[in-house]
């Protein structure tokens, strides 16, 4: 297993330059672009003293290189800055307040997309070249081209406004959470942990429309990937051998699925960035109090340090998830080594 250890170490070390570059990119985008961020965000009409005050508070009056080093070393110490508004609260605390909502949404959205993708992809792969396959190809294109807020709104209209079956905004019915303290911030889990099943059920009800919206739009990519893998694996010798030995269709399919799923895992890393983009739009549509809603609200209030901290956090988050996915992939597939 020594080679696996090498792989994990090298892959982890590789994350350092990637993170450094992302942090630098965020800095360049937010600071070095023409004009200064505060003025362009507040607008030209704000009194100059107010703008100066905000710039002073955000440390934007120091030389650029000092700002850059302050910024890098701050993040290294886990200091993401303090909010310019909301009583100078550390940005990291605020991020952790909103992160669980986004994680809960992305987990469920991701699950929906993988389930739809596996089912449709397997069918398309097994029936490749038929009308079903073609129809599923069109499905994958349409799913990809669907604008998340629009699909979400159509669901809100049908299931919320007309049928009145499901809640269309927020994470939970506020009256349920009076004198209730969440443990992890993931409400579905917290309900179980604190013995409040009513909360778990209500949280699940709130999750249905947002996660199906997010899941459908992302499922198209999995449909195609699973299909391509199924076709490839079906053509391999071991499948023909298994069939020749008289294994039943279902048993053969089980082997095929296991082998076809490995490449799907690598795509999950890349899909994660797409998942986060989708989550921002889904959150806005369903007034979901997660990271996307939070970031947009702070952009509106020109809370510059919080905006920077949140974007930095996204960068770190994506890099770490990609690292974890790559390591998982190496664990499953022994061919991945340095």
């Amino acid at each position, binding site marked *: 297993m020594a080679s696996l250890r090498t792989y994990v170490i090298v892959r982890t070390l590789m994350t350092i330059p*990637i993170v450094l570059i992302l942090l630098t990119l965020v800095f360049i985008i937010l600071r070095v672009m023409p004009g200064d961020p505060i003025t362009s965000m507040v607008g030209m009409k704000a009194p100059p003293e107010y703008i100066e005050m905000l710039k002073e508070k955000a440390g934007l009056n120091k030389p650029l290189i000092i700002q850059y080093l302050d910024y890098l070393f701050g993040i290294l110490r886990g200091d993401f800055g303090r909010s310019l508004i909301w009583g100078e609260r550390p940005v990291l605390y605020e991020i952790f307040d909103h992160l669980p909502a986004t994680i809960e949404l992305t987990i469920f959205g991701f699950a929906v997309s993988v389930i739809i993708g596996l089912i449709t992809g397997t069918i398309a792969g097994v029936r490749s070249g038929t009308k079903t396959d073609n129809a599923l190809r069109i499905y994958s294109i349409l799913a990809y081209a669907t*604008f998340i807020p629009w699909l979400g709104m159509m669901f809100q209209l049908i299931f919320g*406004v007309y049928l009145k079956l499901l809640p269309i905004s927020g994470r939970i019915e506020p009256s349920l959470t009076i004198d209730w303290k969440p443990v992890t911030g993931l409400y579905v889990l917290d309900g179980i942990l604190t013995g409040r099943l009513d909360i778990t059920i209500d949280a699940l009800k709130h999750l249905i429309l947002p996660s199906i919206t997010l899941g459908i739009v992302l499922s198209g990519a999995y449909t195609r990937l699973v299909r391509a893998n199924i076709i490839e694996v079906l053509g391999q010798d071991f499948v023909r051998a298994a069939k020749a030995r008289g294994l039943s269709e279902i048993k053969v399919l089980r082997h095929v699925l296991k082998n076809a799923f490995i490449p799907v895992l690598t795509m999950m890393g890349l899909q994660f960035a797409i998942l986060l983009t989708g989550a921002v739009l889904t959150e806005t549509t369903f007034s979901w109090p997660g990271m996307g809603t939070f970031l947009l609200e702070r952009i509106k209030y020109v809370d510059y340090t919080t905006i920077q901290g949140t974007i930095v956090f996204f960068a770190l988050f994506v890099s770490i998830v990609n690292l974890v996915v790559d390591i998982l992939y190496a664990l499953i597939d022994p061919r991945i080594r340095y």
Partner: protein
Amino acid sequence: MNIVNAILEKLKTMGLLRNSNALFKAGIIIVAGIIILSALAPLLTPYSPIVGTGDELAPPSLKHPMGTNNLGYDMFSRVLYGARTVLTVVVSATLLSMAIGVPLGLISGYYGGKVDRAISIVMDSMYAFPSLILALAIAAVLGASLINAIIAIAVVYVPTYFRMVRGQTLSIKSLLYVEAARALGASDSRIITRYVFPNLLPTVLVVFSMNIADAILTEAGLSFLGFSVPPPTPDWGADLRVGHSFMLAGYWWLVAFPGLMIMLLATGFALIGEGLSDILNPRREAVG
């Protein structure tokens, strides 16, 4: 002119102009249809997209085929003129990304070495970052306007072109005819422009149309979140944002049509891309 001829030659030899497939045709019909409708907008509707008709929140009727919004703007007119906004932003942005990403990818892939590694790691980092959040950060810093939306979207897609062109350049540069050109004493710049670049074009074309489809969704996302063209400019994503609260009161036509148009236009470009890649890479059996 040389390059245009080269593209046409290439397309002809690949049989693209003769036997295209169903996906490609469907895509062309959708995209051309939307372009023609938006170009003919003044003939198709008597209403301006930014002047109230005095008829507020009117449901779809013969007079207003897609109804009117809360300010009495005719939605059909806004949908038609909105196509102009979306296409302007998206096509300019993707052309800009292409203009930056393709040369960078060519240089990086052709010369290799330290510069290549440096550019590659920057591009890979950007590629891994959630596209809408990156565009949002740029647009928020620059302020909401048409030009800034173009810049924000262009930055996001540079890595897409870079990665594809770099990869292709790596494989093309080791091909026999490139070796032959080099042996005959052709300069690097001549090899890049005359031998490598023309061979990239078909793939660039596929990526370009796929990329436009993706950029349409990013533009819609930016304007839905309030970071693209300022009101009252007609724009589908912005109309969805404005219409959302009214939709919850049952005024569905404020959001249904702009959202359908986003999907239709993105589907059109995605179909063109799919069709093109089927034609260029005929292993996958075509639909229809």
